[in-house]
């Protein structure tokens, strides 16, 4: 174990020197797969707080997120699920006054370390948003945008086709790749956003309530897609919909709003995090049980 780690370390440093980049740009699949039955950790959170202009939004979250799992974050509105999700690809950096405290490791590297470039982080950790947000461009250009930005010029057609196939959209759009993406239905737009995300071959995909703006049939398609995609990617999904978490996720984290003594301040807190099966059938915490059984929330 120890030798394996040090070998990985040396290899990483060599590549870092060659690339002249921040530590985080090392692709995780080059790392050692720290063996055996236990799954490799993608994210390790140790006492993570998120503050907006000094006001705590999420408080002391500690959890491990495993590779090639679908991890669901559930909880009532305002419990900080989306805020927490946005820490994982440093999207919170874009909000003035947002601050992340505590330790957030990504494949063992400090995601908020001084050498880490958020742009590099977002290349490895993609994101799908609540409302489908295709670019006002053709379907092809939407998918090709990421690779183009990253300087990929060869075989763009191939990348676009592979990504659209992976997002189960190819057959629906192959004859109209040059049409504006706004002409697609909501569900198709969301799958296009997933294809766009896959096109830059990320390691992890974050999904922020990806189905909340969609009808049940589109939702079903995206859920099927998630189960397929976890063969290749680690997925973290925020969802409002408990059935969805139960259907697609391997592990579920339940967050809740917590008030301070005089009920002036409120923040999100991790109540329970376990196998999805367990969360929905035999939760340890009373509050989790009340929430998943629909008594509160």
């Amino acid at each position, binding site marked *: 174990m120890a030798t394996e780690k040090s070998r990985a370390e040396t290899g990483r440093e060599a590549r870092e020197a060659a690339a002249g980049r921040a530590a985080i740009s090392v692709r995780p699949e080059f790392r050692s797969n720290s063996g055996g039955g236990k799954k490799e950790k993608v994210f390790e959170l140790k006492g993570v707080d998120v503050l907006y202009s000094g006001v705590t939004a999420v408080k002391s979250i500690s959890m491990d997120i495993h590779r090639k799992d679908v991890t669901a974050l559930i909880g009532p509105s305002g419990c900080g699920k989306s805020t927490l999700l946005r820490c994982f*690809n440093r*999207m919170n950096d*874009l909000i*003035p006054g947002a601050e992340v405290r505590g330790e957030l490791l990504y494949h063992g590297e400090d995601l908020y370390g001084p050498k880490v470039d958020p*742009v*590099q982080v*977002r*290349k*490895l950790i*993609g*994101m799908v*948003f609540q*409302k489908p*947000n*295709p*670019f*006002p461009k053709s379907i092809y250009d939407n998918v090709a*945008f*990421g690779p*183009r*930005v*990253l300087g990929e010029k060869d075989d763009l057609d191939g990348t676009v086709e592979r990504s659209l196939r992976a997002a189960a959209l190819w057959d629906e759009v192959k004859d109209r790749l040059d049409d504006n993406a706004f002409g697609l239905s909501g569900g198709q737009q969301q799958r296009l*956003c997933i294809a*766009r*995300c896959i096109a*830059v071959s990320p390691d992890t995909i974050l999904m922020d309530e990806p189905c909340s703006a969609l009808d049940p049939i589109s939702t079903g398609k995206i859920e099927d897609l998630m189960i397929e995609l976890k063969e290749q990617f680690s997925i973290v999904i925020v969802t409002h919909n408990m059935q969805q978490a139960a259907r697609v996720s391997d592990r579920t984290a339940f967050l809740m709003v917590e008030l301070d003594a005089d009920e002036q301040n409120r923040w999100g807190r991790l109540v329970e995090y376990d196998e999805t099966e367990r969360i929905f059938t035999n939760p340890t915490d009373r509050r989790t049980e009340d929430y998943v059984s629909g008594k509160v929330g």
Partner: protein
Amino acid sequence: MKEPGAALPRNRLATAGARATTRAMLGSQPRGDVIRNTVFAGLLLLAVLIALAGLLALLIQAFAKGSSALSLDLLTNPPSTAFPDRAGFRPAIIGSLELIAGVILFVVPVGIGAALYLEEYADKTKWWNRLIEVNIQNLAAVPSIIYGILGLAFIVRGPLDLGFILAAGSLTLALLVLPMVIIAAREAIRAVPDSIRQGSLALGATQWQTIRRQVLPASIPGVATGVILAVSRALGETAPLLLVGATVFVTFDPTPFSPDGYSAMPVQIFNYAVRPQEEFQALAAAGIIVMLVVLLAMNSFAIWLRNRYEQRW
């Protein structure tokens, strides 16, 4: 078939109650309200008519006086003090075209650049950025003659010392309309939803790549509309040009950097209009028609552009 809910008397009662309330609400509008509404709508219509009457009077006046002088020669002949029947606007038209070309060259990169900085980079919580914002709004309201004095002091003479050349006039007009362009470009940039920026950034694009490939292309129609409207304002400005050397009688085609002087359409119209002879009055009116047609065409194009390419999010 049984009506759903008919089994429950409570539901039937509730429905009946709701219907009665709706009926009562729909039926009741006090008579006073109706009269007040009509009177108010009438007053508003009157305001519209007053505004339109001004434009209509101008058009009728110009056409009545100027239609006799309208001809192709008007556009191609140089001005003349001796022969009003042969006098035209050629140097003024060329001068105006060169002026607005210079305005566009200056105002497009600077205006878009300033707008991008203010919208995408400036931290709005900092007081100096808010100060800049307020000042740009104010600059748009500064009288044009002030810009003329500024041009005279800083561009024609002073630090730049360009002399009374067309390029100096162009630069002065550009400064005059720059705030308009910045404001229009900012509106267009702000209209691009944040979800697009986030989508782009989440794919690992840098801020500049996001601006260059997403925000700018999406805001081009709005920016272009603003530029056209600003240019049509520049085209019609007279006061600042008088101060920075748009001289009266130029019978040759002006060039941007020649010290021999230049003219512009509105200046030339003014110079014909102040002459006592009837023929020159007609000439001035014909010039007004030409300018109105050009300005209306430009503004219509701007509106068309906005409606045609405006992105609906």
